[in-house]
């Protein structure tokens, strides 16, 4: 088996003496789609920043495959209101030529935006432009921080399909941060459930039945997932607590 794209080993991050992440161990393999979930304040964005090398670790280590190219789509970019900048020029800022930029826009089906001013496109369009920019680097790993934020429901499904397609076409690994569990789970190989530490990780079926997951998200989400996957491996009592099936 190939060396993972990147591996985080027993990593902790403290910011202003507050422990944000503790003892995180995880890795992302080639062509693997990893989704990071967790409540607000769980440290999802800090973990992403640590994986990107933007956040210094207090302890532990980060190993990246050599010459790893990362395409990053940030959670929200406060596009500078005061800078005149066309979408195509924005994409060419990383040194790509016009053809490459247009192709990347085309891949996200927003080529008609090329000449538009970046600070005038809608939220959903901006997400796709940012996605195009992430693709431009021909990445080994795509990192998407809440990619569907501000995108309507139909657009969300499209965007997830696009992400899966890009994974297949480019053969890259994908790391996503997400809130909406049910759609995400369907397109994910591995789920990491974070609450300052890794509560549980594994494939969606496994995670959705994990007691730590249920404690974090409650049964409502677990049910959604379970319904989605048509696969129950546990029951709930009247109060919603998990009843482990004997011998299950």
């Amino acid at each position: 088996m190939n060396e993972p794209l990147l591996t985080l080993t027993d990593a902790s991050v403290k910011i202003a003496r507050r422990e944000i992440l503790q003892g995180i161990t995880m890795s992302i393999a080639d062509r693997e789609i990893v989704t990071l979930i967790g409540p607000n304040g769980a440290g999802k964005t800090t973990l992403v920043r640590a994986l990107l090398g933007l956040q210094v670790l207090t302890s532990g280590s980060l190993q990246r495959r050599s010459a790893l190219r990362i395409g990053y789509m940030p959670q929200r970019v406060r596009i500078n209101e005061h800078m005149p900048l066309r979408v195509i020029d924005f994409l060419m800022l990383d040194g790509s030529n016009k053809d490459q930029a247009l192709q990347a826009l085309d891949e996200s089906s927003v080529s008609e935006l090329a000449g538009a001013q970046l600070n005038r496109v809608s939220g959903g369009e901006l997400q796709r432009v940012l996605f195009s920019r992430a693709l431009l680097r021909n990445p080994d790993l795509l990192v998407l921080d809440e990619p569907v934020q501000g995108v309507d429901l139909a657009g969300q499904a499209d965007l997830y399909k696009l992400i899966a397609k890009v994974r297949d076409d480019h053969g890259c690994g994908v790391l996503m941060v997400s809130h909406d569990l049910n759609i995400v789970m369907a397109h994910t190989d591995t789920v990491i459930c974070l609450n300052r530490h890794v509560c549980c990780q594994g494939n969606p079926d496994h995670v959705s039945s994990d007691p730590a997951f249920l404690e974090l998200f409650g049964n409502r989400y677990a049910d959604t997932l379970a319904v989605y996957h048509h696969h129950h491996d546990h029951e709930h009592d009247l109060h919603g607590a998990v009843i482990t099936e004997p011998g299950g």
Partner: protein
Amino acid sequence: MEELLLRAVCAGLLVAVLTGPLGCFVVWQRMAYFGDTLAHSALLGVAISLYMEVSLGYGVLACGIAIALALAWLHQHHALPMDTLLGILAHVALAGGVIVLGFVSHAHVDWLAYLFGDLLAVGWQDVQRMAIVTAVICTILLFCWRKLVVIAVDQEIAGVDGINVQAYRVILLVLMAATIATAIQVVGVLLVTALLIIPATTARNITRSPRQMAFAAIFIGCVATLAGIAASYNVDVSVGPAIVMAAFLMFSASLALRTR
């Protein structure tokens, strides 16, 4: 008289070339407060130059760059917000300047020129210094332009692209400090921020890309400078304020022409 005017035009145009692109960054990164506060600290440069009997222009320049470096260092190592640090450092420099001035027995500061600039008192030596500073700053800016623009769009994206954001921020601060120190001679401490912001904002209203905006800002700054000097020559108004008013007239016109 002719030569006096020629020197003023040369100095004014050099400053317009500097404040155009740097002004764009002031507008993009909301650094107006930086320009204002740093300009006030120029008095320390004036005082030290007088005390040590060195050239005023270079003294102010060196002092501005030193304060910018101190700001960057404190910002990075003590995690204090930039505006707080500016408020502390620049005003301490201003206070220090007044105190040092007290020790210079022969001190004669032309306060009006200090506050509002005195372009007509510029000598050829000053023009030469401004030309050197302009050439150096423009060269650095050309080499760093693309990276500085990416950082201005979004710091996180720049970081993931492998750009050393901290280093480029320091470079921008130093360029800005050097520009302000140079521009003070033309428009004075109180008006220097106007020279940074008004041409850039005017340019923003009528352009479609960062590069266009920078060149348009230079052009607008040059026109304002020439108009200000002409007005000053013909109707005997103060040059610095005349330049600022000329720039403001163009800004008003640009509001009507807004492309977006």
